[in-house]
């Protein structure tokens, strides 16, 4: 499973309130949420991400609330993968549950803003095609990969319960 996109680089402690501000949570439609992805820190993100984006960030990405709308908004704003040095635990689970690939790696000082990245999710290999640099990520736990491969937790559970 490989994804490609342009790198957009952010710092440490990117919280869920800047990923999707609370006032938009009544918007249930993923496409509507996507219009406000990263609005608190980078209002141009949905436009920049149009052709496919890979977020590269520092420590504790997605800290704050339990809102699943955070990974949903990113995913539907054409974010193909989020790479961070570490993730806040609820965001980590939520991203996997909505099948937004995420990887833990220290990549923000190795890749450049706007670089073309190709990411091998299963093997945790991040290739910066612009610079010709390869960064290794911590592999995802097998259960997380299974859930992402199934297309998210609801499909995974449907299968497990024999519902299709």
């Amino acid at each position, binding site marked *: 499973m490989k994804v490609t996109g342009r790198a957009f680089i952010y710092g*440490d*402690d990117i*919280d869920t*309130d*800047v990923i999707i*501000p*609370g*006032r938009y*949570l*009544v918007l*249930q439609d993923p496409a509507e949420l996507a219009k406000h992805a990263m*609005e*608190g*820190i980078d209002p141009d993100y949905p436009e920049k991400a149009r052709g496919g984006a890979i977020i590269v960030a520092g*420590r*504790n990405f997605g*800290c*704050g*609330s*339990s*809102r*699943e*709308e955070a990974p949903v908004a990113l995913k539907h704003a054409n974010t193909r993968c989020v790479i961070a040095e*570490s*993730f*806040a*635990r*609820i965001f980590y*689970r*939520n991203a996997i*549950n*909505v099948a937004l690939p995420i990887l833990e790696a220290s990549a923000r000082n190795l890749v450049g803003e706007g670089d073309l990245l190709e990411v091998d999710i299963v093997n945790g290999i991040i290739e910066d095609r612009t610079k010709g640099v390869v960064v290794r990520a911590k592999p995802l*736990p097998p*259960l997380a990969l299974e859930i992402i491969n199934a297309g*998210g*937790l*609801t499909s995974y*559970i*449907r299968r497990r*319960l024999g*519902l*299709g």
Partner: protein
Amino acid sequence: MARASGEKEVEPGQIIEARVDRAMMHDLTGPRVIDSFREIGVEKVWDPDRIVIIFDHDVPPSTIKAAELQRKVRSFAREQGIRNFYDVGRGGICHVVMLERGYVKPGELIVGADSHTVTYGALGAFATGVGATDMAAVLAMGSIWLRVPESIRFEISGRLPKLVSAKDLILHIIGMIGAGGATYKAIVFAGEAIQSLGIDGRATICNMSVEAGAKAGIVEPDEKTISYVRERAAEPFNPVKSDEGAEFSETYEVDASGLEPLVALPPRVDDVKPASELSGVEIDQGFIGTCTNGRLDDLRAAAQILKGRRVKEGVRLIVIPGSQEVYRRALEEGLLRIFVEAGAIIGAPGCGPCIGISRGVLADGETCISSANRNFVGRMGSSKAKIYLASPATVAASAIVGRIVDPREVVG
């Protein structure tokens, strides 16, 4: 966790499938939980009596959309026979109601579709927040996969000085270890200062453990816990303590008697300074309430400062009791009268402006000092507003003076 997963022992790092004792959701996360539950395609929830639904994030609803979403959750509760349902005017903030109505018992595993579910560690439960789809899976199966966390222990010796509260202690702790300092881990709070706190203060501390990234924040149950739970819970319970010789990944010691009133500066919860060093910061609004500091002891602390004093001209002070029960008791004790006479406005029990949805949001360039737990950019409205976090006493004192102040300067 061993009990919940049916194992004799579990080790940090191990992934377990755990049975859930109680599941909680509210008006804001509920609709997405229901959508995911429908997507899974199971007809009935695993056990309606183990599910609690509490409306608090936008109560009473302020928009047509919010009213519609609440109607959706209300009819789901009826359809599924979920009797532990707290509609507008019946409950209050979910994390206040869960404790005061006896839904939390020591040694239980509780999940909530809200990050501040960690609050229930105040009664010795292992409680953690999850997203909507995780919660939908719990509703369908009654279980969840969890990674057994490492634990950090905070040993808090001494007693908190006068007008220094549980809030100041947890701000100090988060300042020490940082906003990601406990990511994936559980924090155990122990020591004389913790034992001397009531359940309300312990709730404040556990509530903010998620601000350091913790999966759970836990106070070992003691006599206070047991008598609190006995007064409220119908069923028996089995308290759990740290194992004899338990290993902690880190241990920290703090002397509570050396602490002073503290403030977290925007936009970082771990950028903590003494209130006395921030006296140049003028404020437009003060806010006392939330799942961190909307309990009776918090309102008492604020009333003690505000009694016989007035909120400064040009400053708005919003006070929101954490639940209907807190509201009633604040009424009986005369606290609400003190707030009204001081020029504060009293809001309906719920989250209020903390999440930037209902009344009390901030305009561009405004500054608020709040007893809440988060000061992220845009949290309370405009992304150009600033939020300082402090104790109810510090918020009350600052509202009187019109700038951030150490409450000990107001009541000597």
